[in-house]
């Protein structure tokens, strides 16, 4: 009797949970549906029939218009350039720093590690004005090069944290055996540690590429020249010029998010495991 009651309650509970999950999923997907339904139709169609109606005709030209009017080719090139330079360079520097923190005994190693970890909490705002002045006096103000040093510096804490955690899991015997064979420390790092670290490096590269693509505030302050704008800054500019051309605007938004959505959908396995594992430590 008891178990029958319980199982009926169980079933009702399970149903309520499923309902909650489905309703939430519909709400969570709705903005994607809305931008798609906005971006693929004409402005007139959207205004007279509403977003939720089926488009009278597919207006593919919205995408090419947005691409041209918004200068997206420039922004895409700039953001890609940043990713291609910043991500590998940052990971190399972080791995170099993580190696002694994980595998060498020296005074101050804990202090240095904590010093880096504090950077996880530093708000970008507290560096902006000096960075602007510095980049101007270095002669790289208003260029993409101005973004690379702060992006590197703000990326390091998390990457050093993850790489140190990973290096510590690698057996010390590997390093000792290589030393006995006469390998230099640099040789050990480049020929043993780095090749073994491809999984966490791949995860960090994906996370870092997304973060670089999405970064807004530093670029907003350091970049004002049209030729150096990144995708988020360019998108903001595009919005300023076409704020009431909703269909064109959403086509531009869609263009700017398709790369990150594709990376996420195809590589989410590495991505999510990495995010979770990194904080678990």
């Amino acid at each position, binding site marked *: 009797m008891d178990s029958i009651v319980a199982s009926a309650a169980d079933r009702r509970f399970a149903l309520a949970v499923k309902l909650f999950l489905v309703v939430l999923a519909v709400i969570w997907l709705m903005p994607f549906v809305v931008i798609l339904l906005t971006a693929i139709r004409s402005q007139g169609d*959207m205004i007279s029939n509403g977003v939720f109606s089926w488009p009278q005709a597919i207006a593919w030209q919205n995408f090419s218009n947005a691409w041209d009017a918004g200068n997206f080719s420039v922004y895409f090139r700039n953001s890609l350039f940043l990713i291609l330079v910043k991500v590998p360079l940052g990971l190399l520097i972080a791995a170099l720093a993580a190696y002694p923190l994980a595998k060498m005994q020296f005074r101050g190693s804990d202090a240095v590690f904590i010093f880096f970890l504090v950077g996880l*909490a530093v708000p970008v705002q*507290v560096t902006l004005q000096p960075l602007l002045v510095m980049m101007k006096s270095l002669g790289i103000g208003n260029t993409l090069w101005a973004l690379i040093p702060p992006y590197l*510096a703000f990326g390091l804490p998390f990457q050093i944290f993850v790489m140190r955690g990973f290096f510590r899991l690698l057996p010390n015997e590997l390093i000792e055996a290589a030393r006995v064979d006469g390998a230099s420390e640099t040789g050990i790092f480049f020929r043993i540690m780095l090749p073994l670290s491809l999984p966490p490096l791949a995860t960090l590269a994906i996370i870092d590429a997304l973060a670089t693509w999405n970064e*807004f505030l530093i670029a907003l302050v350091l970049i004002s020249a049209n030729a150096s704008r990144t995708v988020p800054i360019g998108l903001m500019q595009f919005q300023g010029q076409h704020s009431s051309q909703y269909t064109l605007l959403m086509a531009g938004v869609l263009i700017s998010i398709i790369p990150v959505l594709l990376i996420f959908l195809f590589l989410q396995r590495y991505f999510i495991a990495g995010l979770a594992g990194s904080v678990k430590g």
Partner: protein
Amino acid sequence: MTLADSRATRARPRASAARQRRQRVLAAVRPWLFLAPALSLYLVFLVLPMLFTLYMSFFSWDGLSPLSERVFVGLGNYVRAFAEDDVSRRAFVNNLYWTAGAVIIPTVIGLLLAVALNSLTAVNRLLRTIYYAPAVLPLVAVGLIWGWMYNPNFGAVNLFLRWVGLDGLAGGWLSSHTMALPATFFTYVWSHVGFPMILYLAGLQSIPRELYEAARIDGASRWHCFRHITLPGLMETHVIVLSLAVINGFKVFDLIYTMTYGGPGRSTHVLGTWMYFQTFQYYEAGYGAALAWIIAAIVLVVAVPYIRRMSRD
């Protein structure tokens, strides 16, 4: 001959002692050689600017004219932020609301989702993807998407409300003094709920299944299991999730900037946006520096347990 021999045998230990010394020096220096690129970048482009901002927060300076034209004002900028400037006080309160919301709402939803989606079925994996997907978008795009969703005339939110007969609720979400901040916060929930979900999913893996089985045999209810096994078992994750919620609650910038630009009036400013406006629009770099350091000080204090947890082995 013998002399040469003996000299050679005496020289060898001396040479190897020198080599050992060199090796020792090298061993002492080596970690710092590996650390040098990271440390120098971190010091020059993060720590140094931070300290310079702290220094500037005690001055009145426009950020444009030569540094020599700065005027020392002591704690004046901080007094102004807390006692004189209504907008900065409003911004601070908005940060508190935002942070309180960020601590409770995405955390609770993320925890519920993690518990509900813990088993690795195909449907669950799809649902995880759906809930997490907004988190990978640039916040500028998120802001523009929801700016359009909230559009008073053609936006999806109002269309939906009118369609279900709640015309009274349909309004200018982002232009309303009372609704602009909650509406922006809802967007934050949409875009951030995936983070606590993922972290809690990872945390759940560390709770042994046997605990639940034993509790079930003892006749414990579902709520009892959740209350006495799941919640305490996730203690480590709670620290991380809640610290990150507070840290990010005080750092918030992108969504406010893109969705309300601090308006209507100046009612939705947070410290992050107000600092930006003061420094780069009104050219009050000294005052902006003080606002930036108020954010930094709060965040760094809150981050202590988080950093302690991360540095533990």
